[in-house]
């Protein structure tokens, strides 16, 4: 009987591993990043048509009920405003991020986040925003914004966020 085994990876290989970046297999970001249109200063000091304007005056996110990806009435109201703004400021491409709370398993939450991001995407497209401007990405439960382990936090983390490029 003869046993053989491959060596544990040598430290050298590990270093090599860390230095050999993988092949880039996808677009790094949705190009089309654009400067905001010419400025007009709003009372709050926020430039109309800027990213800050979108976040402060439109609302960049919508929230979901537990384990749901359907859009609530408040979410649709926000997305109506998003659609109007995005049609006004045509230069932006954007990514819709789908997120879940921590009360689900990792892989299911990735799929759920994907569903949520697509619910936003589809609503915006139905309201006249060009599909070519939209990318989606799911983070599952990996990127909470509220840190508590309670429903108040979880309801903030079950979200779809429109991130302008």
């Amino acid at each position, binding site marked *: *009987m*003869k*046993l*053989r*085994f*491959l*060596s*544990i*990876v*040598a*430290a050298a*290989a*590990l270093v*090599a*591993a*860390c230095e*050999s*970046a*993988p*092949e*880039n*297999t*996808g*677009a*790094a*970001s949705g190009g089309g990043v654009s400067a905001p249109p010419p400025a007009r200063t709003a009372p709050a000091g926020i430039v109309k048509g800027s990213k800050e304007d979108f976040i402060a005056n439109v609302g960049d996110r919508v929230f979901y009920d537990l*384990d749901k*990806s359907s859009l609530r009435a408040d979410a649709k109201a926000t997305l109506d405003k998003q659609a109007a703004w995005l049609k006004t400021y045509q230069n932006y491409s954007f990514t819709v991020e789908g997120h879940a709370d*921590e*009360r*689900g*398993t*990792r*892989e*299911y939450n*990735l*799929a*759920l986040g*994907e*569903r949520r*991001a*697509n*619910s936003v*995407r*589809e609503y915006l497209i139905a309201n006249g925003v060009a599909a070519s401007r939209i990318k*989606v*990405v*799911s*983070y599952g439960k*990996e*990127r*909470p*914004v*509220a*840190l*508590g*382990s309670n429903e108040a*936090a979880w309801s903030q983390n079950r979200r779809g966020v429109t991130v302008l490029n």
Partner: protein
Amino acid sequence: MSRIRLLAAVAVTLILGLASYPSPTHAEVRIDITNGQMRPLPIAIPDFIGAGGQENQVGRDIARVVSADLERSGLFKPIDPRAFIQTAASLQIQPRFPDWKAINAEALVQGKTEIGPDGRIRVEFRLWDVMSEAYMTGWTLSSSPADWRRLSHKVADAIYKRVTGEDGYFDTQIVYVAESGPKNDRKKRLAIMDQDGENHRFLTEGGELVLTPRFSPSAREITYLSYFKGVPRVYIFNLDTGRREALGNFPGMTFAPRFSPDGNKVIFSMAEDGNTEIYEMNLLTRSKTRLTNNPAIDTAPSYAPDGAQIVFESDRGGGQQLYVMGAGGGGANRISFGDGRYATPVWSPRGDLIAFTKQKGGRFFIGVMRPDGSGERLLAEGFLVEGPTWAPNGRVLAFWRDSPSDERGRGQSVRLYTIDLTGVNERVMLTPVDGSDPAWSPLIP
């Protein structure tokens, strides 16, 4: 890559053993590990000794690793060496069984170390049944000095196997996701270590989010999810070369990967336009096959050890439940019918059970059921327990536990655990930082 040979100095040892000592078949020492209330077997593991200082040092280290492996299994109770009567040196000549009976040892390990002129370590060990004064098993192996821990784990595996009748699982590794930083900006790195936490090293730097690593059957490759450049995709990491490559170029997010038992395929999920389906990628032909087709979330696939069936989770019936389908896809049978939601199914390497994560009443559980859905048993419970993975002998599971945090994220602790299939002997796995998503390797070839 250097390739190290472990020279088995023969099955001859075993044959000689049978000739020279009372037959192992008369041994009384035996642990029935199917019963959760087993009594740990008192075992004496004196230092392995050699002719000189360095050989003795290695021998002490080996005995310590063997002892820790066996103790952690919950099936053995190593006796404090300070109680030993017969010296290790004297033991080399002949075990004096009354000395070992006097301290209630039921099994005794006799070990010898030698360091050759080329630096290689040679280990010889014998396992004795103290009560019947019978030889049970033994062998001689050698390795490079760097692999002395593997020699030790192989000794522990041999003892475990001889006493329990089941294969050991100590000469194995764990790959997992090492976590650090605040809860809303968690840095996640792939890390790999021996199953006892030693030889720990990071495989990625933390620049991109990584999740759900799983070993190939050779234990030389790891498939995992990486957000490299912001795009979530399945990758394969080769431990020998350090190369990472994407499984393929797909239109949607790919995730939840696992190798097939023959290593020729990776099964995974792809989400497209919000709908998640299960696909298989043939690594030899690079062809992709879709295995599910419905508007539900179908994910977390895992092959049966014979490769003929796949268990996965789906919410096609409303909530997350477990389903089994043929490896070619098509019709699937639901197997989970209890209250609550069922997720992350993983088929045991023995084929007899499927481990899963269950959510019910605001709690999480790790459980097992038979592949037909019968015989459900819950093994571990918590605020969040998730992601079971099987030790290669199908007797022990690892998983991870997360604790609740306050509004500022304080109190969170994410740790790896192991538990016996019978639901006893839960132990934390020591990792330098927090850890999640463990995957247990096969026995290292």
